[in-house]
């Protein structure tokens, strides 16, 4: 839903890191975006194609790692995967749950061609 703002920030990070690494061209961006973040990959890709045009990131391939949400029951300790909708612990039916994974939103790695290699 707010993919434009997220994509702009991904581009900002990629440009900064690309420049810091003296990249002539950024060819790939590796991200972890947890399922709980309600971000749609296709939508990010759509905005990316527009806003990265004319920068050193143009044409970079976006790689999404989408970890599913993992919750831990605070009553019985059981860990289980959850989709968008909140469900109780399948083991003991408690709703007392903590997020273990699935709310990540990071740019992890960039792949690039250096100034010399591309020349």
């Amino acid at each position, binding site marked *: 839903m707010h993919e434009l703002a997220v994509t702009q*920030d991904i581009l900002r990070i990629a440009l900064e890191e690309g420049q810091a690494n003296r990249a002539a061209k950024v060819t790939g961006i590796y991200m972890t975006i947890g399922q709980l973040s309600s971000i749609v990959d296709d939508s990010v890709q759509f905005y990316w194609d527009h806003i990265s045009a004319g920068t050193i990131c143009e044409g970079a391939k976006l790689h999404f790692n989408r970890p599913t949400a993992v919750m831990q029951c605070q009553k019985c300790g059981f860990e289980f995967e959850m989709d968008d909708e*909140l469900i109780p612990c399948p083991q003991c039916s408690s709703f007392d749950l903590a997020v273990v994974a699935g709310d990540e939103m990071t740019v992890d790695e960039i792949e690039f061609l250096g100034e010399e290699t591309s020349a």
Partner: protein
Amino acid sequence: MPERVEIVRKILDSNDRLALENRKRLDENQILGLNLMASPGAGKTSFILETIKRLPAQVKLGVIEGDTAPVTIDSDKILAAGRPAVQINTGGDCHLDAVMVEMALDQLPLKQLDLVIVENVGNLICPAAFKLGTHANVLIASIPEGDDKPYKYTNIYRDLDVLIINKTDLLPYIDFRMDYFTTGVQALNPGLVTFPVSCKTGEGMDAWIAWLMGRLELNKK
């Protein structure tokens, strides 16, 4: 051959940093900032207007109104109630962010204010991802929206400081299971401060005002 380098940077971190700047600015002026969120039609503006009516006159309040369309319907109502208001038009964006709030703060008489209420864009998804720099997140849930919202919009409920349940006057007419709703809320946010109110009848508003006055008091110290 392309090289790969590990960076691991948080997305939207720049927004979070700017939000901290906004917070600093509010603190320097001893202003309490509230981020008021809800779905469209839950009664955000009505709730602010009812709050204005009941707040003692010595509490100086300013309002930032966020809307996706270039309208001033909401800010006009606040101005008509005699309080300063700034309208933000997000130009289609589904949420407010720290930059928009920074620009709105520029237009408010901060030195004279004790309280700033930011009315976010009506939406239960996107506003949850953007910190504004306000001190507390307040969500208005309203009875006609249904009792399953905490189960469907988990992110917004996880990050709340106060929950308002509005339109309680409609409870006799709508199949809203308060137990089911509360179970979902407690799962996401145990012990969340909650005020059931009706902006129509005024029921429950006094308890909210009492909480707000307490928070304002804490903020002055």
